[in-house]
């Protein structure tokens, strides 16, 4: 018998059967000995019996309902809506829920540790690499110098690429993550205005405050930062960002009035990953990272032509 409900019902039936038999035996014994004064009021007895039966069934039903609730809560945790199993449960179930929450705590901590170690490894290597790159640029043998410079650049790309992935792969499974698009875009625009202070770019943003996506803040920052930075690099004077809701996802559109990317090259730009060693520093890798991060969150990125004249990048992420 796999079902808990069936087991309880069978148990209840057997118990009732036993009770009936015992009652029968006792009543017979008593009537044989001729004990006087036992009068059975059949009407009242049957009402009472029906009432008891109904109450018993209701109790059995209510008794099992926490299991259903627990299932719904677990589904919410799994989908990322909740971080922990919430609510109060009967004693036996509650201890189970507490254990489950403790397990989630442990898991989150070990993910955070692994993430921190990956980060420390990458960042720890970058300063020695910076030293190496400077030494290479002063090397007396220019061929040796440029070979080292090239390899340092390859290592940097490898680290940036895999670090972004390690972070996202871990945080994609961190539970209960919800992030407002506007909260991420506004600081990024502030930052880019400072970084591109020489360029007098104008930023237009059309974002609704209640547009939120299921994503870690760091990763949303990374995706939008790369898209907006790319737009700033190529724009002549205008960069725009807008968000809209479409079914169960949020569309974030970043546009610029620069030269854009020809149709035949758009896919190549997104594919360009760690292997594109020959391309200049910082070019292309950004969009490839955005594509991979979006993919990890069940989203996507699409490149097209903007009415402003340049590139239009459409990032779709699951709504929260």
């Amino acid at each position, binding site marked *: 018998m796999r079902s808990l409900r069936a087991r309880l019902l069978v148990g209840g039936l057997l118990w009732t059967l036993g009770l009936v038999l015992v009652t029968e035996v006792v009543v017979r014994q008593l009537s044989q000995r001729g004990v006087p004064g036992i009068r059975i009021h059949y009407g009242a007895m049957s009402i009472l019996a029906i009432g008891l039966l109904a109450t018993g069934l209701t109790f059995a039903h209510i008794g099992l309902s926490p299991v259903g609730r627990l299932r719904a809560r677990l589904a919410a945790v799994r989908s990322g809506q909740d971080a922990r199993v919430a609510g109060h449960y009967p004693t036996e179930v509650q201890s189970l829920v507490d254990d489950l929450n403790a397990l989630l705590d442990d898991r989150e901590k070990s993910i955070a540790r692994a993430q921190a170690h990956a980060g420390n490894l990458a960042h720890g290597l970058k300063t020695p690499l*910076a030293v190496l790159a400077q030494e290479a640029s002063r090397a007396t043998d220019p061929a040796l110098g440029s070979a080292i410079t090239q390899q340092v650049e390859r290592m940097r790309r490898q680290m940036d690429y895999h670090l972004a992935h390690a972070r996202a792969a871990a945080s994609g499974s961190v539970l209960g993550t919800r992030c407002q698009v506007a909260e991420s875009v506004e600081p990024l625009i502030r930052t880019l205005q*400072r970084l591109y202070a020489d360029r007098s770019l104008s930023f237009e943003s059309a974002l609704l405050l209640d547009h939120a996506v299921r994503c870690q803040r760091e990763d949303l920052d990374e995706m939008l*930062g790369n898209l907006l930075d790319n737009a700033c690099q190529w724009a002549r004077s205008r960069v725009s960002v807008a968000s809209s809701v479409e079914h169960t996802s949020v569309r974030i559109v970043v546009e610029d009035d620069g030269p854009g990317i020809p149709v035949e090259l758009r896919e190549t730009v997104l594919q360009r990953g760690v292997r594109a060693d020959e391309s200049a520093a910082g070019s292309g890798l950004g969009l490839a990272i955005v594509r991979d991060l979006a993919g990890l969150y069940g989203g996507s990125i699409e490149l097209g032509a903007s009415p402003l004249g340049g590139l239009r990048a459409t990032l779709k992420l699951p709504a929260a």
Partner: protein
Amino acid sequence: MRVLIAEDEPALARQLADSLGQAGYAVDAAGDGARAEFLGQTETYDAVVLDLGLPGMDGLTVLRRWREAGMAAPVLVLTARGSWHEKVQGIDGGADDYVSKPFRMEEVLARLRALIRRSSGQVQPELRAGDVTLDPRGARVMRGDTPVKLTSHEFRVLSYLMHQRGRVVSQAELTEHIYAQDYDRDSNTVEVFIARLRRKVGPGVIETVRGLGYRVAAE
């Protein structure tokens, strides 16, 4: 022009100091957060190169304390942690520009020049006064079509005055911007540099404003 380098990796700090020195800057170095905070608040710099991963007190805290104390010099942040989330924190903490490690030295120099130019309100990369042209990109000075040979101190005096074009600069202010901190300042006086500069770039470029200081006239 005087620059502070706050970087804890000695090899990298030395490379930065060498390159900035060759580009004509007076350079001070701090190897930890507390020293960086102290120098930034007590000395006068035209720009700062700040590593965020400093021991003792991290770079972001140093930066916030500088800004709270009213330190206004442009800060170029140098960091191994180059994610956008961290860039936002750095800029919000008061940084002006960002370079991720590993970097190319030319990039650091170019960004530093742009920051100094912007903070002194100059638009063109080349600075002009009369027939004298100063190009911070190559630490080169031309008088008409002839290159002028200047010592590093002379270059810093001229560069600072030309960045502050149109404004009277006192001798004390000039002193603060041309010497590194540990330099023996008494051995070379500003008057000597000014006199030598006038011989090399022509007498009309630097005016003496009696009792106040020196000025390179605006166009």
